């Protein structure tokens, strides 16, 4: 049976893993290879590297670290951040990443999803959606990496979720912003609501604080995978421990 996936997300800047408020106050957490292999050894099913290297003048950032990881890592990984064109994506995939994840550039240019799917196949095209809960319902936010630029994208989350699938997205990461960083659990209501309109794999993101939160999101929102960052980076929950608890709750996971 297909296992539910646990996906740690690491922020990368200039080839180092960092943490801090996005785009500010970054502290280097450690070497990218050390952390990646540590999560792999602890049972991570897949890794996401979110490249937050600033590129204000639009030049190509150094992505030599992708090939370094691809040489060593024997599980799949996805690269997010700064992928704005088929050429950007090609460089990342040729370096050895399995998937690329796009978010704001897809909102600016939705045809990019089709271009990528046609060129590389849907299976490696992940679309990230930052969804906020508002008085107008669930709305897609854009440029969430930079607080000074974050804005409403003009789209309802449900409409965008359907559109990106029609354009060829092979997987969707739904980051529920109200719950993000709060560690009070995934936004089960939102994920449950949107799951019914998602026929491709759906990855829950935002809010994981305990093993119970993962049990809940798999049992109630029926997501294919759960992504988390701070709960793993802080050391408060180890993936091996989490997987034991998921198995105890009769949720299929890879040992």
């Amino acid at each position: 049976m297909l296992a539910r996936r646990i996906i740690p997300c690491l922020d990368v800047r200039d080839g180092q893993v960092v943490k801090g408020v996005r785009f500010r106050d970054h502290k280097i957490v450690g070497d990218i290879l050390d952390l990646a292999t540590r999560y792999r050894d602890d049972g991570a099913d897949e890794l996401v590297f979110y490249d937050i290297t600033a590129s204000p003048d639009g030049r190509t950032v150094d992505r030599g670290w992708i090939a370094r990881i691809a040489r060593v890592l024997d599980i799949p990984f996805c690269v997010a951040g700064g992928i704005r064109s088929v050429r950007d994506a090609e460089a990342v995939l040729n370096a050895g990443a399995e998937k690329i994840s796009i978010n704001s550039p897809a909102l600016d240019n939705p045809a990019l999803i089709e271009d990528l799917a046609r060129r590389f196949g849907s299976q490696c095209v992940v679309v990230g959606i930052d969804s906020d809960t508002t008085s107008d319902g669930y709305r897609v936010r854009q440029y969430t990496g930079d607080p000074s630029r974050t804005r409403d994208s003009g789209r309802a989350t449900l409409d965008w979720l359907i559109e990106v699938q029609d354009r060829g997205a092979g997987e969707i990461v739904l980051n529920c912003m109200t719950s993000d960083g709060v560690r009070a659990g995934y936004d089960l209501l939102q994920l449950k609501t949107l799951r019914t309109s998602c026929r491709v794999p759906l990855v829950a993101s935002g809010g994981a604080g305990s093993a119970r939160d993962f049990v809940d999101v798999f049992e109630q929102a029926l997501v294919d995978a759960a992504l988390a960052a701070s709960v793993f980076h802080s050391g408060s929950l180890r993936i091996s421990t989490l997987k034991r608890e998921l198995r105890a709750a009769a949720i299929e996971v890879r040992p």
Partner: protein
Amino acid sequence: MNSSAHVVVIDSGGANLASVGYAFDRLGVETIVTEEAALIRSADRVVLPGVGNASTIMARLTQLGLIPVIGSLRCPVLGICLGMQLLFDGSAEGDTPGLGLISGQITAMRPGHGLSVPHMGWNTLEALVDDPLLHGLDQNDWFYFVHGYAAPLSHANTVASTRYGDDFSSVVRQRNFWGVQFHPERSGRSGSRLLSNFLSLPSCD
């Protein structure tokens, strides 16, 4: 296999060529990535990787004149993911004729029951047939899958199956042509064991 044997990865134009090469590197085996017929013919092991779209990759192999070259190989050949699907007679993906080296037609997955397509993630093998490619592997080994089309079960060529809604062939073999639907290059220790088994297969039929 001796260390001077040539492992050739056919440059099918897909995006996972680097990953496949790295996986053999980790086993201490160098690979040659090439589209040259002469190099492919002289190989001791040939890997046909594939990521993307069936018709795009078949068009590329046709254009390079590699269809008869692959068909004439007598050494062990391993198709990975789409590379495995291309070994079959044809695929419903874009109504693409295949290499015709393994009997059967690739069909679109329609698992239903609320299961997502593509089938993406870690899954296991069932109903394993005794085959040297699977030495040391069993139902407890996990492999990484990403695909929206699949091979049907066949008494003639299924070596292992996998369940996702319905059962499909996840490992196949006909003569010296093996295929795996999953990505051994990204399947941890189990995948690495399978690639190592591939390197240990007897060189000729």
